[in-house]
């Protein structure tokens, strides 16, 4: 159930994976979380809260606080600290509440 996370900051010899945080390429060690990539990218906020619009960055890194919500590869409201990076992953800010995707039934 438990496994060590790689250091978020790449060290010599690490296998690196390139992902995109708000469109900017970031290289992180394989097995790191999307939230680690968010923090390394230096982006000022990965989400804004739905009611007050306050800016947030990953905080607890263990799936509790929901401050790491991001749109990952087109899926809204994902907890980026629980999602391991994959090559080419697109991590976009979750600004406010997500939109429901309504396709007309007709």
């Amino acid at each position: 159930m438990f496994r060590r996370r790689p250091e978020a900051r790449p060290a010599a010899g690490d296998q690196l994976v390139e992902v995109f945080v708000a469109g900017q390429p970031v290289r992180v060690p394989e097995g790191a979380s999307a939230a680690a990539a968010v923090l390394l990218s230096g982006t000022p906020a990965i989400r804004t809260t739905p009611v007050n619009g306050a800016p947030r960055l990953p905080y607890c890194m263990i799936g509790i606080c929901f401050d790491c919500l991001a749109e990952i590869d087109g899926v809204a409201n994902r907890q980026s600290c629980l999602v391991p990076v994959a090559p080419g992953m697109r991590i976009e800010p979750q600004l406010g509440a997500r939109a429901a995707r309504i396709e007309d039934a007709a």
Partner: protein
Amino acid sequence: MTATGQDTRDAIVVGGGLVGAAIAYGLQRQGLSTVMLDEGDVAHRASRGNFGLVWVQSKGLGAPHYQHWTHASAQAWPELAADLLATTGIGVGLHQPGGLHFCFSDDEMAQRDALMGQLRREAGNAGYAYRMIPAAELRDMVPGLGPQVVGASWTPYDGHASPLHLLRALHAAFQDLGGLYRPNAKVTAIKAAPRDFTVAIGSETVRAPRLVLASGLGNADLAPLVGLSAPLRPERGQILVTERTRQVLGLPTHVVRQTEEGSLLLGDSKEDMGFDTLTQTPAIMRAIANKAVRTFPWIAELNIVRAWAALRVMSPDGKPIYDESERYPGATIANCHSGVTLAGAHASLLAPMIATGALAPEMSPFSARRFDVQKAA
């Protein structure tokens, strides 16, 4: 008040949920010095689990007094919400754009139409506007309606509000007006005499000429102490809550509503589980989710972030009980499972009756004596 002291008031309200708080607020607003006794979190707390509809359609079939009462409450609601906002600064998220009850077959549409027509006949001069709306027209009113929906009934009276903000606003307004809120105040004894009631909370007592019992399921035990009966049973309802989404659903429905903050609440289950609010029943949760998705397929993609169960306070016929004691005038009981819908009536209509000392004659069909008659028959 000291540990052994006695507090004398104009009115005592037992119960700090939506019913008790609405009545206590109404009494205090009438100028009566009122104390509200709230048992604590060991109580069943139906008000914390409410779905939040202000719902008129389908209430009171065969019971025009109940239909009128519900309708009157919906009409009293805008003023209640405005008063609470003015007094406390708390918005309760009231919207009354009318509401939809969906049907999934032509048969269901016909049955629903018959039911609504009967309600209209029973409404008499009070009036009861409704429409059966076919799916083609519904698609312009709500987004992404599922292909299985055949139509819906609509009345202009329905709406919704935040139960938690309402509860908080009623408590705050009550206290702003000078009412005394007593938390962790479990009633341990009641000494009743005509227009003279002494209620013990452990070693403390409060005394007043008016006593209102509004303690939900707790009334079953308390009512006999003032010569009344409250035959109540718990009916469990479960609710699922989705993550917040941008506003998408402009009007409430009987199975889904979107809160002001953006969450979608999914509900409308009924179970007999005694007093159990903790055991999760996946079958019921699945049924709630399925019905929501049949209605609005796009909900399937949203994450569920919370789920809970709460107990409705049900009388044998499902209608409210309002009763006053003949043996001990001044004692009133109030019970219902629609603490949000009826908040307007409780604060603006019922509380003034209690303040003047007698329920209005049109309230007599709500008396629990109706159940004695049924037993005898």
